[in-house]
């Protein structure tokens, strides 16, 4: 498996080239959801592009309080009724990211964050 494949399969990665955090989760039906955190705003909210399993996308602006993590469960304000899960190790990483963490990048870039 190539490095790119590994990145594409990892439940949460930070891409320092694009300055984007990408979370991959599944809903109760096992369908994949992708949340791309594309902007870290001055008030520390994040702009997230949500890719739903049906192919639709929507853009949400999320504070750290809008992304709740409990064990493997992740709930996101604006995705009401959608119960997402991801491995706890990565769910905790996602929680930290929404609270201002800049992870060591999975895709390195020439500068951080």
């Amino acid at each position, binding site marked *: 498996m190539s490095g790119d494949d590994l990145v594409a399969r990892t439940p949460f990665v930070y891409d320092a080239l694009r300055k984007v955090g990408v979370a991959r989760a599944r809903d109760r039906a096992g369908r994949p959801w992708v949340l791309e955190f594309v902007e870290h705003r001055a008030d*520390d909210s994040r702009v997230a592009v949500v890719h739903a399993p049906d192919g639709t996308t929507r853009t949400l602006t999320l504070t750290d309080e809008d992304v709740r993590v409990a064990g493997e469960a992740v709930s996101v304000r604006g995705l009401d009724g959608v119960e997402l899960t991801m491995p706890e190790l990565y769910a905790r990483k996602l929680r930290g990211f929404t609270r*201002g963490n800049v992870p060591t990048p999975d895709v390195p870039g020439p500068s951080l964050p």
Partner: protein
Amino acid sequence: MGEVLRAWFVPNGSYLMEFAEDGDGGPSVEALQAIGREIRESLRPDALIVASPHWQPKAAFYVDDGPQHESFNDYPLRPAPFGRRVFAYEAPGHPALAQALLAAGRAAGLPVVPKRYGLDHGAFCPLKVMGVTLPTVPISISQRSSTETLRWGETIRAAVAATRLRVVVLAPGNLTHRLDLRQEDEREGFFAPGARFDERVIELVTTGRTLDVDAIDPEILRAAAPEAGNRPLFLLAGVTGNRAGRLLRYHGMKYSVGDATFAFDPAPAAA
């Protein structure tokens, strides 16, 4: 009267935990372990403040006032070349000290707010390698100006002085931090522009001119991409009364990362 006993700028690469666990040692691991012994055996502080370079909010300086802090793994968890083992670390908090920092920050007119966060690897990697577990207050380094970061450091120093606590401060970071150039195998040489940058910063810090880091040629700065934009050094300048640092160890890691370890003995706080 409380006191900052000593402060350090230390490396925080997650690979250091692997070196330590495997018993491979190396310059940075040895430096961290020596600091750990010093903290445990001679300084014996009441509490520790750690400012992670990976905690970089924009709106404020965050202070974790929780009673207990658990680590989370904010580094790649895939196989090599960049993946790392999963490590864990836990430390008690020091809510009273955290509240003192928050109150002092607000009184100084700085954007300082409480935030429950935990310990990312920028904080827990050095502590784990040091073998230190103390009542701990994690704080963010934040994406604020160097001037404001310096003031926050000064405020921390004054806040500690107003307590009865003996405190040590850790501001981890790397000098050159070009992870995009990283090589798994060590090379004879080190990324040349990075080496030049590191040499300049070491000269400034060890001669008490840390604040002049801001005056380094922007092109050199861009090429070196220092971790957290040198803010850990500005925080430490504030915390220590802009004292010169002692270079304990320097090692160019993996072609791309400048692992420097500095110790700072703070100036006596004003009465």
